[in-house]
């Protein structure tokens, strides 16, 4: 529900923003945005703070914890030593919640994990002050006040409207449904423009962004479909239920795309035909998403 109200679903492909020499692809809105929008839409008051000094950042955390306030914060994944090595790279926009302190170790609720974990103060300081792009600067936030009644239906409507705008309207090719076609075009050119090794690494990165990062699978498409289903039940609007089913099918297509891409990587296959076919799969997804968000925009409330 929070993902939908916070307009979390997105697509972006930035060929010129490279991480380790590989162009960036994203399936969700930029970090921090969902939390900000959800709390704004539902009238929840939050306290946000950034720090210049590491000591002050940890002090503020301890003060909040001593008042039994769970604290959300932005961290660099690389320093979260409770995660398996496979996931630890320099990504500095990972949100987690610290909910207590015991024997000088912090108690963590991390969205990646099924269970809670603990982290030592040294590692947490490093994670909170990770450098690079972006820099969290010890940013932390907590809930100050929750209104007596919450108007979910309005939040749902506003979240959906904003999502439709973000997906359909950007006038630049790198964001929204148009970016899916942009990526499809790029993939078709991979075997012509890149070395076979680059080809597989580029494709592999798309798969990782789609499946490894985040929740739900299929580049957050299933999570958004689940939101639409929940929204349909909450508002009694059957149109949303039908649209949820349609978006599930689009999510399945994304899974099929990832599976096909992985097969090409595995075969180390850089022949033109397979990349052309992959590109076609993606163009088809782009068309479907375009129509989907057009129809979602037209839902009568």
């Amino acid at each position, binding site marked *: 529900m929070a993902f939908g109200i916070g307009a979390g679903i997105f697509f972006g492909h930035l060929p010129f923003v490279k991480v380790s020499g590989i162009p960036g692809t994203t399936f969700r809105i930029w970090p921090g945005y969902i939390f900000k929008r959800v709390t704004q839409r539902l009238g929840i008051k939050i306290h946000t703070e950034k720090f210049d000094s590491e000591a002050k950042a940890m002090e503020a955390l301890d003060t909040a914890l001593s008042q039994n306030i769970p604290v959300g914060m932005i961290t660099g994944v690389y320093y979260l030593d409770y*995660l398996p090595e496979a996931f630890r790279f320099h990504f500095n926009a990972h949100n987690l919640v610290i909910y207590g302190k015991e024997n000088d170790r912090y108690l963590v609720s991390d969205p990646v*994990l099924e269970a809670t974990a603990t982290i030592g103060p040294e590692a947490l300081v490093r994670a909170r002050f990770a*450098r690079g792009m972006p820099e969290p600067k010890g940013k932390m936030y907590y809930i100050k006040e929750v209104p007596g009644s919450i108007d979910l239906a309005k939040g749902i409507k506003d979240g959906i409207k904003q999502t439709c705008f973000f997906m359909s309207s950007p006038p630049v090719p790198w964001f929204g449904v148009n970016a899916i076609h942009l990526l499809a075009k790029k993939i078709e050119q991979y075997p012509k423009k890149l070395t076979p090794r680059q080809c597989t*690494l580029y494709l*592999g990165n798309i798969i990782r962004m789609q*499946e490894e990062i985040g929740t*739900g699978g299929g580049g957050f498409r299933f999570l958004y479909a689940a939101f639409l289903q929940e929204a349909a039940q909450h508002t009694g609007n059957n149109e949303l239920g039908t649209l949820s089913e349609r978006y599930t099918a689009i999510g399945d297509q994304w899974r099929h795309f*990832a599976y096909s891409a992985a097969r090409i990587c595995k075969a180390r296959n850089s022949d033109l035909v397979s990349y052309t076919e992959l590109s076609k799969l993606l163009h088809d997804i782009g068309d479907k998403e375009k129509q989907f968000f057009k129809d979602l925009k037209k839902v009568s409330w």
Partner: protein
Amino acid sequence: MKLNEVPQDKEEFKGKSNVHKLLYATGDDGSYTSVNSEGWEAENLATTQAWEAVLEELKETEAKVKRGELSPIAYFMQKNLMELSVLARYMGKWKWQIKRHFKPEVFRKLDDKTLAKYCRIFGITLSELQDFGR
């Protein structure tokens, strides 16, 4: 994705399957539930492939350090999965300054303060840094 289509492809590589991913799938009546997954073949392949590329490159850099073409700074930067821009931010220096430190002859002349800063960032001791590749 249907509930019975949720993959459970275990992957031991660097502890990947120690974390069970939360997937959203539909049951027989079409209603969504969340379910844990051990992993998925396609995703596992992408992860291991990316790591193999990193490790391969690290090996090449190690060889270069041993041949005296690069300084240990270049090796430990890669070992910590950092890019030049990230290391420069941690050091509070420009990228070209870090790049200079990649030269063995420049590295040998670095002052203790700079070396200590590198050690702290990489989480290693001074001797580990200076003796690497010798």
